[in-house]
C-alpha cells in the first residue's frame, strides 16, 4: 500500500489529534463558553450570559494583578533554578564512572513522588518547631534561632520555590541527558583535536547540539510550572496573607471554594492567553531555524 506523501503526515497525526480534540479541546471550548456566563456552581438553573463581564471584572481585580506578579516570580525563578541544576546534573551523569547507572536512577526520586507528599514533607522539614532544617541550621550555627520559613512573607515564596526546584530538576536532568546522546561524538573529537578546552567544547558543541531539546524542555516546564498549584496549595495555601498566591491557585479557589465557576474560568482563560503570548514569541524564534 502506498500512501501519498501529502496525506501521510495527516495520517500520522490523526490519532493524536482525535484524542486531543475529544478530551482536551472540547472541554476547553466548553469552559470558554462558561467563562462568558455568570456560573455559580450551586445555582445550576440560573446561568445568565454576561458576555465579557467576567473578563472586565478580572482586569479590574487587584487580586488578579497581585497573583500575576507572584506567578511571574514563581515561574521565572523556579524554572531558571531547575534548569541550571538539571543541566549540571545531566552533564555530570553523562560522564563515565562506576556507579553511573545507580546515580541516574536515584536522581529521579524527587520527580517520582506525588506533589502532595512533596508538599507535606517539605512543610515538615521547614517546620518552625520540629523541622529538620531549622534544627540543623541552629546546630551548625547557620541560624541564630529557628525561622518560621512558611509563615514569613519574606521567606515563604523562597521556601515553596525550593520545593518545586527539588521536584523539577530531575525532569531537566533526564530530558537533557537524553538530548546529549544525540550529539555525535565526532564533534567532540574534532573540537579536542582543535585544542578546545572543556569549557569551549561545551559552548561550541554541547550547547548548540542540545539547543532544540533545551528550548523544548524549558518551554514545557514553564507551562507546567505556570499551571501547577498543588505544592503551593499544600504548603501555604497561598499565604501567609497572599504572599504565595499565584494565578492558577486563584482560579482554582474562585471556581471551587468560591463556587464562582464563570469567574474562575475567565481567570483560567486569561492565564492561557498570557502563556500563549510567550509561546508565540518562542515559536517565532525557535521554529524558524528548524530544518526546512
Amino acid at each position, binding site marked *: 500500500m*502506498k*500512501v501519498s*506523501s501529502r496525506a501521510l*503526515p495527516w495520517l*500520522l*497525526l490523526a*490519532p*493524536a489529534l482525535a*484524542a*486531543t480534540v*475529544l478530551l*482536551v479541546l472540547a*472541554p*476547553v471550548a*466548553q*469552559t470558554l463558553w462558561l467563562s462568558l456566563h455568570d456560573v455559580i456552581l450551586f445555582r445550576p438553573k440560573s446561568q445568565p450570559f454576561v458576555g465579557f463581564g467576567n473578563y472586565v471584572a478580572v482586569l479590574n481585580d487587584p487580586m488578579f494583578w497581585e497573583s500575576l506578579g507572584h506567578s511571574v516570580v514563581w515561574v521565572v525563578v523556579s524554572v531558571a533554578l531547575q534548569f541550571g541544576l538539571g543541566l549540571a546534573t545531566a552533564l*555530570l551523569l553523562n*560522564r563515565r564512572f562506576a556507579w553511573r*547507572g545507580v546515580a541516574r*536512577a*536515584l*536522581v529521579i*526520586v*524527587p520527580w*517520582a513522588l*506525588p506533589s*502532595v*507528599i512533596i508538599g*507535606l*514533607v*517539605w512543610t515538615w*522539614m521547614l517546620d518552625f518547631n520540629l*523541622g*529538620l532544617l531549622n534544627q540543623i541550621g541552629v546546630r551548625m550555627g547557620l541560624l541564630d534561632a529557628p525561622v518560621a520559613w512558611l509563615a514569613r512573607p519574606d521567606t515563604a515564596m523562597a521556601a515553596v520555590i525550593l520545593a518545586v526546584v*527539588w521536584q523539577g530538576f530531575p*525532569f531537566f536532568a*533526564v530530558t537533557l541527558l*537524553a*538530548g546529549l*546522546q*544525540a550529539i*555525535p561524538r*565526532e564533534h567532540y573529537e574534532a573540537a579536542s583535536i582543535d585544542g578546545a578546552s572543556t569549557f569551549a567544547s561545551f559552548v561550541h558543541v554541547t550547547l548548540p547540539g542540545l539547543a532544540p531539546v533545551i528550548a*523544548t524542555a524549558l*518551554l*514545557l516546564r514553564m507551562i*507546567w510550572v505556570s*499551571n501547577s498549584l*498543588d505544592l503551593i496549595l499544600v504548603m501555604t495555601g497561598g499565604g501567609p496573607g497572599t504572599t504565595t498566591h499565584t494565578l*492558577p491557585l486563584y482560579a*482554582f479557589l474562585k*471556581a471551587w471554594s468560591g463556587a464562582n*465557576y464563570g469567574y474562575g474560568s475567565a481567570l*483560567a*482563560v486569561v492565564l*492561557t492567553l498570557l502563556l*500563549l503570548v510567550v*509561546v*508565540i514569541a518562542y515559536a517565532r524564534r525557535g521554529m524558524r531555524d528548524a530544518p*526546512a
Partner: protein
Amino acid sequence: MKRLRLFLGTEVPLLGILAFALGPWVWMMLSSIRPDEELTHSPVSLIPGALTLVHHIELLQRTSFASNLLDSLVVAVGAVTLGLLLSLPAAYAFSRFRFPGRRLLRVQFLVVNMFPVVLLVLPLFFLLRRLGLLDTYVALIAGHATFTLPFAIWLMTSYIDGIPPDLDEAAMIDGATGVQVLRLVILPLVVPGMVAVGIYLFIASWNEYLFALMLAGRNVRTVTVALQMFIGENEIHWGLLTAGGTLVALPAVVLFLFAQKHLVGGLTGGAVKG
C-alpha cells in the same frame, strides 16, 4: 591523577546533588520506620531511637495500598504505551514533513495544554459520564495519555530533529516508504528520546491526582488518591503517609534503572559515518 580528576570533578559534585535529591526522601524513609511518638519529639533526633516496620505492615495489610499500587501501575503502563503510540508518529510528521498548517498545529498542541486542568475537570466528568467510562482504567489511561500528549509530541519532535535527516533521505532513495523510514531508521535511533518521554509519561501518570480523584476512585483507585486518604480532617497519619511516600517513588526509580542503559551516546555518530 585521572582517577582523582574524575573523583573531584564528577563524583563529588554528583554526591552533593544526590544528597539534595535524596535528603528529603531519606528523611521520610527514616520517619516511616520510627515509632509514632518519636515523630513529634522535640528536638528531633536524626537517628531513630527504635526501628519498627509497624507502619509498613499496617499500610500493606490494613489499607488497600497494595491494590492501589497495582491500579496505578496498570494506568501508568497504559498511559506510557498509548502516549508513545500517539506521540511517535505525530512527532515524526512534525519533524520530517512540511505541510500547510504544520506550525499552527504544533502550537495548538501546546495551547490546549496551557489551560489549567482544574477548570477542565467538570466538562470532562460530563463527557466521560456520557461515554459510560467513569471509574474505569480506560478513562484514566486516555486522560493521562492525552493531557501529556503535547509534552510528549514536542519532546519527541526535538529528539527526532536531532537525528540527521541524511539518514532517512538515504533510505528514501533506496525506495523505503515513509512508514518504513519511521520503523527502520527513526525508531532505533530515537530510543534515548523514547526513554526520556516514556519516563516522563510514566511519572506524570503515576503522580496525577486530580483526574484520579474526580474521574475514578472506587473501582480504580490510584496511589495518589490512596495517599490522600491518610490526610484526614483532624489527623494526618504520618506513619502511613511516610511509609507510602517512601514506597511510591520506587517503581519509577527501578524502571529508570533499567531504561537508562539506553541513554548511551554515539549511536547516531556511528550511523552517519557508516
